[in-house]
């Protein structure tokens, strides 16, 4: 694992691939320039600090991809995903071009910089795009593995780098979920770095824990095969509930309930650190413990209960 976290690992991984693959090119949105200083010297023709113009950068990258290169575009999450969303959709996904979009500043990693630099909606937004691959590594080592496996597969791929990493790496594989633990009371679906604060609790609950570092395409098979009981708790590092639809579709025709734990849909107008935001959002390890206990203690209403409720005059409108 790189000591400098995922950002340093990204540099190391890309530097080694630039050497191997003459088609690989890197466009930086005027960030990470110091980190890539050696690459700038060695590959000055295809490692470019393209500037702060995200919409055009994606279009330029698409023009490069259409003509035989494998572009990587790197900048801060909201500026790439949200500002240039239509370019990602039209220039890459619609035209069936391969390229890599690598961001820093996941969710509220840049807590103190305020809402303009937060991006908890990236995953859910990109999930709307056909052909888009979404990779959410939980550690530097996982990033290295997933990037090498995916970067040249001809599809547009989003890599969501996080400042905070899980305590250990898992043997991840693109498009596959890992079964971290087996239990019987519920199924925990955990995405990338959402495992970090959950990790100290993982043995405390009688749950099967499925770990996802690829969000799209979503591995429904592992979910279907390993789901226990009808109760799911979804742990996401982004807006909560983003993967509910995938779980529901995987569990089609099987009774299930999904509780979601992730970033609530509101502007986070406080500053401070990401850890302080965790506390405020009930996402710290202590808060998670209480929330999980409450969910596991609650009963899932079955269809008969629903029918009873519908008869109640308070409920019937």
């Amino acid at each position, binding site marked *: 694992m790189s000591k400098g976290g995922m950002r340093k690992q990204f540099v190391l991984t890309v530097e080694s691939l630039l050497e191997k693959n003459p088609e690989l090119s890197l466009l930086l949105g005027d960030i990470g320039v110091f980190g890539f200083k050696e690459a700038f010297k060695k590959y000055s023709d295809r490692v470019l600090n393209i500037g702060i113009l995200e919409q055009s950068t994606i*279009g330029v990258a698409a023009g*490069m991809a259409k*003509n035989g290169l494998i572009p990587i575009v790197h900048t801060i999450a909201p500026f790439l995903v949200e500002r240039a969303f239509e370019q990602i959709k039209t220039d890459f996904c619609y035209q069936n071009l391969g390229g890599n979009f690598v961001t820093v500043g996941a969710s509220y990693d840049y807590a103190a910089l305020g809402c303009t630099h937060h991006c908890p909606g990236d995953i859910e937004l990109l999930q709307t795009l056909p052909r888009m691959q979404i990779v959410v590594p939980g550690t530097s080592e996982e990033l290295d593995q997933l990037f090498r496996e995916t970067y040249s597969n001809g599809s547009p791929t989003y890599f969501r780098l996080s400042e905070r990493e899980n305590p250990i790496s898992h043997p991840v594989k693109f498009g596959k979920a890992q079964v971290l633990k087996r239990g019987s009371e519920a199924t925990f679906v955990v995405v990338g770095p959402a495992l970090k604060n959950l990790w100290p609790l993982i043995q405390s609950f009688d749950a099967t824990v499925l770990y996802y570092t690829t969000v799209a395409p979503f591995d429904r098979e592992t979910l279907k095969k390993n789901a226990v009981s009808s109760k799911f708790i979804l742990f996401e590092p982004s807006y909560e509930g983003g993967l509910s639809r995938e779980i529901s579709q995987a569990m089609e025709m099987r009774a299930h309930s999904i509780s979601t734990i992730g970033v609530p849909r509101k502007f986070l107008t406080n500053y401070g650190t990401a850890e302080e935001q965790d506390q405020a959002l009930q996402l710290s390890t202590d808060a998670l413990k209480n929330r999980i206990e409450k969910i596991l203690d609650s009963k899932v209403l079955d269809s008969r209960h629903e029918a009873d409720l519908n008869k109640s005059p308070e409920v019937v409108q």
Partner: protein
Amino acid sequence: MKLDSQSKLRALRRKMIEVASSAKEGHLPSSLSILDLLWVLYSEILQIDPKNPTAHNRDRFILSKGHASLGLYAVLSEFGFFDVSELSTFGKFSSRLGGHPDTTKVPGAEASTGSLGHGFPMAVGAALAMKIQKNPAKVFCIVGDGECNEGSIWESALIATHHKLDNLTCIVDFNHSTDRALQLGDLVKKFESFGWNAISINGHDHEEIRSAFTQSEKPLAIIAETIKGYGCKSLENNPSWHHRSPSSEEVEGLIKELR
């Protein structure tokens, strides 16, 4: 203009009117606005082989103002990228030829465009790719004047200058149709101030168009003064025709008006 070019262009205009009418789709005036530009490009400038439209060393042409697709399809079919008979499928459910070009379907369409301000950045990316790959091919792009409202056009113009993309030519179809919304002023001066060489021409004069494609040490902008709907009097500078297809009763009258 050579006589055979004139008669061929008249035949293309006629075909475009018939196709738009039968499909009940198409941006006819925008397509007619660029027809002369496309004709000179495909007949005299672009180094391309219609039988091998993905050849490594081919020149690339991107129609950034994708709503003028009917003009592009007419010219591509005329030059043998696909059979002329396919034009009659325009806009139909299973056709390859949609209201905006789809690069995954149409031979010779180098980008899927439609949303304005997307094709030109891709052209800049293509020109950059040619430089990186030491490919001598050139890249040409037509953008609309309305499209020049988009910030991505000017962002990409900066990138082209910074990376010395002397293999790139941007042609602005300056038919002034969006002057009513946003005045663009002197586009030659604007491109020059962005570090390009720029020239203004009559976009319907084939000799002027031909002469404009000069080798330059900088990216080249050709500001083509055009008439939207050129070649068919009722359509010329008539905003009501922007996205209207002629009824079957109107077709004959429009054809009679053709230059």
